[in-house]
């Protein structure tokens, strides 16, 4: 709810559970699992690309959440945002620790380092439809709209990095550009993205 202070007051269930976890409340950890495991599993499946690794990682993530709950600061973001960040970070750790130029099997059975799927093409269109627009969805569409303002290849690269954990090196080979070019592109893109998000 960053940037929307005062506009909406939404009960942050995950934040409440994290607070109980700092007091060593084991039931709160279980409640958090029941509520958030499908989302965390979704992140891990997308980033790690296979179920056995994702299930191992989910156990490690829950242990990190238990150990680090006190580091969550409700002033800086939502509880769900924080546990997703812990999860993404752990997945990146797994990816960076294993093979540098990996071939991950995707749920569809292909290889993500080779496939030519275009994540940006699958981004939802930021025009409100008939379906219910939850606050989370509206905020997502706002970020997506800013990403879509970037040149298309850069937008695709930002998506690939965030959703799949692709590194500069992997993006450079995928887009067939020199590593330094990819770095320069994305550093500029990140600065524009921040400006857009803070408008």
């Amino acid at each position: 709810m960053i940037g929307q202070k005062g506009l909406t007051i939404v009960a942050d269930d995950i934040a409440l559970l994290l607070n109980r976890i700092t007091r060593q409340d084991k039931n709160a950890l279980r409640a958090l699992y029941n509520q958030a495991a499908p989302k965390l599993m979704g992140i891990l499946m997308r980033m790690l690309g296979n179920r056995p690794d994702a299930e191992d990682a989910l156990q490690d993530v829950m242990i990190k959440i238990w150990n680090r709950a006190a580091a969550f600061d409700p002033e800086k973001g939502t509880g769900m945002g924080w546990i997703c960040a812990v999860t993404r970070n752990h997945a990146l750790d797994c990816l960076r620790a294993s093979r540098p130029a990996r071939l991950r099997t995707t749920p569809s059975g292909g290889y993500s380092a080779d496939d030519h799927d275009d994540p940006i093409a699958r981004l939802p269109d930021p025009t409100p439809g008939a379906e219910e627009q939850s606050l989370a969805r509206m905020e997502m569409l706002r970020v997506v709209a800013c990403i879509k303002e970037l040149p298309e290849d850069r937008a695709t690269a930002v998506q690939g990095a965030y959703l799949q954990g692709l590194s500069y090196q992997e993006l450079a080979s995928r887009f067939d550009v020199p590593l330094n070019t990819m770095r320069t592109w994305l550093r500029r893109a990140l600065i524009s993205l921040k400006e857009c998000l803070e408008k």
Partner: protein
Amino acid sequence: MSEQTPQTPIPDDDVLAAEYVLGLLDGDDWQAAKARCAVDGSFAQLVQAWEARLAPLNELYENADAPDLMPQIEAQLFPAPQQRSRKSWLWGLLSGTAVAAAIGVAILVFVPAAPPTGPVLQAELVATDRELVLQARFDVAATELRVTLRGQDAGADLDYELWVIDETEVPRSLGVVRAAELALPAELAQGQVLAISLEPAGGSPTGLPTGDVLAVAELSES
């Protein structure tokens, strides 16, 4: 690569934080940013801001079926008391940040040296602005860390505090370093990172680094 591209500018910390959050960094860059995030409060805040800024994108991850893994998770977190090793007891004590504040910081004192016989992990932490050099040698077989400290005093009402950061990324205090030479029992491993920070006299009141981090180095085999 040979084209006349201007030299890639050195990114400022905010861009580095964004690169770290997105997952663009590889290898040493990733490790370095991770270690910095654990010990450098101002960098960690930039990272947190980027995490919050991009968090709405988490909506794009589709939920996936998760089996009930809580029995395995609880077995790891809360082992039956009789199975607890000294190490897991120590972990339990040190890993909860909430209880960390209540832990008194050990004041490390001089202990006479005996030469190590087995493998040794080393790290050298150098803070150039203070001409401070902390050398750490960990004797794996004896589970003993020897520290020598050369350089300026911490200053009035201040102390140097030594930290280790492992895969949990939560800095764990090894204690306040006052003596020029000391030895202490420790559980350390290759690849862990040592850091030295400037803290109020007696050590960080929170159990996590609060002052400037002066130097960081990874433990590696000598």
